C-alpha cells in the first residue's frame, strides 16, 4: 500500500481520502497565504522606510540649502558693513594723510636746523645744544602725535639733567663721570645732550621724517590730482586715467598710514636697554633717598634717646643712690627725692611714647592702615571723614609710608590751607593702593616750588615703593592730593578682631 509521507497514513475509503486531500490543500493554501501576507507586509514596511528616508534626505537638503543661503547673506552683510567701515576709515586716513604730509614739510625745516647746527658744532660749539634741543622738540611733537592719532605711546628715554657732586678728594662727579674740577652748567648741558643716545636717535628720525612724509603724501597727491585734475583735462582716456589715479590713491591711503606709523615708531622707540637704564636710574635715586631718610630717622631717634630718656634714667639712678644714703639720716628728704624719681620715670615714659609713635604708631601695628588713619582723623582739629574700602592689609612698610604721608597731609591741611573739612578716601584699584586726601581750604599748594618741601618729602618717601603723588590745588581750593602705590594686599587677618 502506498504511503504518503507527511500527510499521515492512508485510512478508510476513497471519499474519506478525497476530503483528506481537500483538507491538505486547504492547509497548504492557508500556509501559502500566510507566507504571502507576511511578504507583502514586509515589502510595504520596506517601502515606507524607504520613503521616510527619502523625505528625511530632502528635508536635510533643504535645511542645508537654507543654511548656506543664510551664511551667504550674513557674509554678504558683513562684507558690506566692512566695506562701509573701510570707506569711513579710508576717508579718515585720507584726511590724516593730508595733515601728516603738511607736518612732514615742517620736519624738513627742523632737519635743516639740526644738521646745520650739529655740523657747525665743530667750529662753533655753542650752536650744538640749541640744534639738538630743536630735534628734541620735533621728536616730542611726533611722539605726542603718535599717541593722539594712532594711540601708540612711544616712551621718552632722555637722560636726566646732571648735577655735580663734590667728592671727598676735591673731585667732582657728574653721573658716572669723575672730573678734576667743577664744570660750568653750559658744559654739563653740552655733555648731557651729546652723550645721550636718545639725541642721535631723534636726529636719525628727523633725517627720515621728510621721506616718511612722502609716504603719506603719495596717496594724497593721487587723490588731489585725480579729483581736481578732472576739471581741466580733456579726452576720454585722460579722464579714465585720472579716475584710476583717484581710486588708486583711495585704496593705498590706509596702507601708507600704517607704514608711516610703523616706521616712525621703529625710528623713535628707544631700545629695550634704554628703558632698563631709566629704571636703574630711578632705582638708584630712590634707593639713595631711602637710605638718606632712614639714616636721618635713626640719627633723630638716637638724639632723642640720648637727650631725653637716657638723661632722665641717669638722673633717676643718681636720685635713687642719694635716697639710699639719706634713708636713715633724713627720711623727709629721701621721700622728696623718691617723688622726684617717680615723676622723672613718668616723663621718660611720656617721651618714649612720643618716640614710638614717630617710629611705628602702635595703632597701626594693632589695627592696620584704615583704623590708624581713622585714629589720625580723630586726633586732627579738623573735621575729617574717612571712607575705606580695602579688602586686606598691605605690607607693613607700605602701610607705614602711607600712614606718615597722610599724617603729614593732615598737618599741612590744618596748618596752611585754612580748611575746615577733610575727606580721606582709601581704596584698592587693580593692584594699586590709592589714597585721596581732599580739603576745602584756599588751595594754591605747589610741591614743585620752595614752599612745598613737605610734599616733596612725601613724594620721595613714596618713591621707594614706586609710589607717586599727584597734586591738584588751584587758587581758591580745593586741594586734592592723590597717593598711589603699587602693592598687593594680603587677605584680611582672621584673628579675634
Amino acid at each position: 500500500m502506498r504511503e504518503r509521507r507527511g500527510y499521515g497514513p492512508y485510512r478508510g475509503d476513497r471519499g474519506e481520502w478525497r476530503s483528506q486531500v481537500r483538507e491538505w490543500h486547504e492547509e497548504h493554501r492557508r500556509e501559502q497565504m500566510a507566507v504571502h501576507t507576511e511578504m507583502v507586509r514586509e515589502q510595504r514596511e520596506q517601502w515606507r522606510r524607504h520613503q521616510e528616508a527619502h523625505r528625511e534626505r530632502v528635508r536635510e537638503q533643504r535645511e542645508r540649502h537654507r543654511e548656506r543661503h543664510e551664511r551667504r547673506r550674513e557674509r554678504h552683510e558683513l562684507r558690506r558693513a566692512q566695506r562701509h567701515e573701510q570707506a569711513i576709515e579710508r576717508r579718515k586716513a585720507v584726511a590724516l594723510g593730508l595733515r601728516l604730509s603738511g607736518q612732514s614739510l615742517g620736519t624738513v625745516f627742523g632737519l635743516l636746523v639740526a644738521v646745520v647746527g650739529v655740523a657747525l658744532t665743530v667750529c662753533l660749539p655753542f650752536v650744538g645744544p640749541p640744534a639738538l634741543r630743536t630735534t628734541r622738540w620735533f621728536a616730542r611733537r611726533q611722539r605726542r602725535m603718535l599717541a593722539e592719532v594712532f594711540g601708540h605711546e612711544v616712551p621718552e628715554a632722555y637722560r636726566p639733567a646732571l648735577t655735580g657732586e663734590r667728592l671727598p678728594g676735591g673731585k667732582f662727579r657728574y653721573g658716572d663721570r669723575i672730573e678734576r674740577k667743577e664744570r660750568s652748567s653750559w658744559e654739563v648741558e653740552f655733555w648731557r645732550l651729546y652723550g645721550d643716545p636718545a639725541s642721535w636717535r631723534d636726529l636719525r628720525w628727523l633725517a627720515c621724517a621728510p621721506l616718511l612724509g612722502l609716504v603719506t603724501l603719495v596717496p594724497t597727491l593721487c587723490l588731489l590730482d585725480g579729483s581736481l585734475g578732472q576739471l581741466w583735462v580733456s579726452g576720454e582716456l585722460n579722464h579714465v586715467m585720472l579716475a584710476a589715479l583717484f581710486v588708486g590713491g583711495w585704496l593705498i591711503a590706509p596702507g601708507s598710514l600704517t607704514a608711516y606709523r610703523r616706521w616712525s615708531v621703529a625710528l623713535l622707540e628707544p631700545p629695550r636697554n634704554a628703558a632698563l637704564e631709566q629704571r636703574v636710574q630711578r632705582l638708584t635715586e630712590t634707593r639713595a633717598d631711602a637710605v638718606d631718610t632712614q639714616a636721618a630717622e635713626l640719627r633723630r631717634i638716637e638724639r632723642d634717646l640720648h637727650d631725653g630718656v637716657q638723661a632722665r634714667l641717669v638722673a633717676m639712678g643718681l636720685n635713687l643712690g642719694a635716697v639710699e644714703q639719706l634713708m636713715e639720716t633724713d627720711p623727709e628728704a629721701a621721700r622728696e627725692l623718691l617723688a622726684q624719681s617717680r615723676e622723672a620715670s613718668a616723663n621718660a615714659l611720656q617721651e618714649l611714647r612720643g618716640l614710638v609713635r614717630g617710629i611705628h604708631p602702635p595703632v597701626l601695628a594693632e589695627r592696620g592702615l584704615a583704623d590708624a588713619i581713622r585714629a589720625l582723623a580723630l586726633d586732627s582739629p579738623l573735621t575729617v571723614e574717612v571712607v575705606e574700602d580695602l579688602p586686606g592689609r598691605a605690607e607693613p612698610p607700605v602701610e607705614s609710608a602711607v600712614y606718615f604721608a597722610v599724617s603729614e597731609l593732615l598737618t599741612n591741611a590744618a596748618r596752611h590751607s585754612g580748611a575746615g573739612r577733610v575727606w580721606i578716601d582709601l581704596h584698592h584699584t587693580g593692584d594699586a593702593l590709592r589714597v585721596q586726601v581732599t580739603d576745602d581750604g584756599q588751595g594754591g599748594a605747589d610741591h614743585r616750588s620752595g614752599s612745598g618741601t613737605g610734599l616733596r618729602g612725601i613724594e620721595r618717601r613714596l618713591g621707594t615703593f614706586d609710589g607717586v603723588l599727584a597734586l591738584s590745588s588751584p587758587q581758591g581750593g580745593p586741594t586734592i592730593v592723590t597717593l598711589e602705590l603699587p602693592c598687593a594686599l594680603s587677605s584680611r587677618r582672621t584673628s579675634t578682631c
Partner: protein
Amino acid sequence: MRIVLAEDLYLLREGLIRLLEAHGFEIAAAVESGPELQRALVDLRPDVAVVDVRLPPTFTDEGLQAALAARRQVPGLPVLVLSQHVEQLYARELLADGSGGVGYLLKDRVFNAEQFTDAVRRVAAGGTAMDPDVIAKLMASNSRDEPLAALTPREREVLELMAEGRSNAAVAQRLFISEGAVGKHTTSIFTKLGLAASDDDNRRVLAVLAYLNGT
C-alpha cells in the same frame, strides 16, 4: 571685690597683683592671653576686669577685643583697660554702648596707687575712668566747637575733670573749691553745651563724654 587681671609681662602682672591685694582687692584670676581672658571674664563674672590692650597670641589689640566681646555677652561688665598709649578710637569703642562701667588709662597711672585704685573702684561701681590724655585729645579735636570755646577757664577745668569720670566731690577736692561751687560750674557748663542736667554723677559724665565724642 573680685578682679580678673590680664597682663602678659610677668613683672608688671606681679606688681599689679601685689598693689591690688595691698588695697584690699581679691584677684580672681590673673591671665596672660586674649582667649584666656575672654573665658575668665565670661566664666568668673568678676566685679571688675583690669586688662592690657596688647596681649598674646597676636600682640595687637587682643585684650581690648576680648573685653569688648565679653561686654557684648555680659552687658555692663566693668572693664578697666590699660595701655602704653591712648587712642581716641579705642576710647570711643569702649564708650560706644553708653552703659558705663569702663575705664581707659595709661599704664603709668598705676604709679599713683591711690588714684589707680580709686579708678578701679569707680569703674566697678559702673562709673568711668578716662585718662587725662584721652580727655586732652578729645578737647583738642573739639577745639573749633563754639559752645566749648564759650566756657570760662575754670569751667573747662571742671569739664575736663568731670570727663575723666570724677564725681562732683572729687572735682571739688582736686580744685580746692567747695562742692557747691562745682555744682554751680556744672550747671553753667550743661546750660552752655545744651545738655540736660542730671543729679547722677555717672550719667552726667556719660553725657559729657557723648558730647565730646560728637554723638
